């Protein structure tokens, strides 16, 4: 398992892996995930406006990340 703390953008719902129907909670939030690669996003008006990716994170890792703006926002 890996533990990823998404710090920003604060107060926004965080979605993982393109699963836009199931928020993992409002940032800042620590999310528990399987080891490997993951994509973290926020959605506004049916478009992704913030995103960050982590690559090949091994088991037992704790990470802190902030999402970067997506410009222009990408429709989901």
């Amino acid at each position, binding site marked *: 398992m890996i*533990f990823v703390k998404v710090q920003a953008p604060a107060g926004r719902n965080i979605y993982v*892996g393109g699963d836009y129907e*199931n928020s*993992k*909670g409002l940032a800042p939030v620590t999310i*528990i995930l399987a*080891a490997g*690669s993951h994509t973290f996003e926020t959605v506004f008006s049916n478009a992704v406006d913030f995103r960050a990716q982590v690559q*090949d994170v091994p088991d037992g890792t704790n990470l802190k990340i902030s999402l970067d703006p997506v410009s222009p926002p990408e429709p989901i």
Partner: protein
Amino acid sequence: MRRAALFLLLSVMLAACDYPVRNQALTSANAQAKYELKYLPDGDDTLVIVTASGGGTRAAALAMSVLQAMDRIKLPSGQSLTDKVDIVSSVSGGSVTAGYFALYGKDGFDTLESSFLRRDGMSPLIGSILNPFSLAVLSTPSKERIDLLIDYLDRQLFQGKTFEDLVQRRRRPYLILNAADMVEGVPFPFTTYTMNLLCSDLGTMKLSTAVAASAAFPVALSPVTLKNYCTPSAPGRAPGVRDALQSSWYVNPSRVAWARAASAYASGSKQYIHLLDGGIADNLGVAEPYRMLTGGDNTLDLINDMGQGKIKKVVFVMVNARSFKPSGLDSSPETPGLLDMALGSVDSSIDRATFSTAERLRTLLLAELEQFATQAQDPKLKANLRAVARNTTFLPVDFDGIRDEKCRQAFHSIATSWSLSGAEIDALKKVGGALLGNDQDKVARDNFAKMLKDVGGHVDGQLPTIEDACRTVQGAG
């Protein structure tokens, strides 16, 4: 008479043109009614999971026996532990009980017993094969051997009910019926997520078809074939799969293997999925709950509910009705025949899969949850995970838990069949409850007492004893 014969011939010829379509395409209309745990009424902070293994009527009866015993465990709310089951995941024979329990709750146990467990389910199946009309129909692609089981399950129990009926019921438990993809060799859970990978709707799927797929024992029954409605130009939605595919196999081999199979479905590269008995890949039905508990790429994400403190306690009841009939092959120099080889290779692969999945689950619940808590740096997350780890009880119900060898062998020798004697059913009805609290084994007894303490429950009356169950099974022999 001539007219009837002509009609029969024409019917057979017409039917020969089409293979049965068992699943419907996902449309904007049926995409709304989703069968997912989050749409069922909220549970409390105790997560109760029951898994039921394969093993024909033996497995169905054992699973019911355990659920009936759990109904005697009364909680402070006045409800029983059976009322509080959140998830039931099953394979093969266990799926008959799991499916009926999800549909009717504990009110269905009497009907399950009288209309299925105590019925001779083999004669109607064999009779159908021997019936000339059935034989004619079965020689066409439109009706397959698995239809005999689907029709029987519908006639006796499910009466055409679908997953949409479970949505309408709006009650837990959440049902996961598990078959196996015979080409990929991986579990195929009948969930909204998996069906959506095929651009197909779970709601319209008949429960009898999913149960039969879960119980389609290789060779004896034909597979249940699902159509993949995704195409390369119109692929399915597959949350999590892209990320998993971008991961190194060396970091998380099981996640990458799952994603490759899921991707093959969603991309439309596999046009048909042939499903056999779920036991080939996971005879305990624990693979999907395991994925939910380990933060897999799954819409049902239980590990994060634990981290956030929504789930504080876990009760995991794993019912294993594995048989182990002594084989004469070991004492003969004679080369085993074709049938022995076919059955032996299926049985041993099921046993191997059963052992490894049971061990993975045991390790997860008894060691890894605590390890996750140690690894987590976020203090709140750490505290929540640690609390869950300490308030988790794993209750395996398995004939192997019986110390008395003769009694254990007697239960292991109950055939894998859709027809058992009344005395065998009586014994199975006792042994499930007896093994839940195993009065003859201190470790099991302490485990059961811990569970009662964690959930604040007590046993109303007394559970059956191992001695009583043993007496009954030895009388049955």
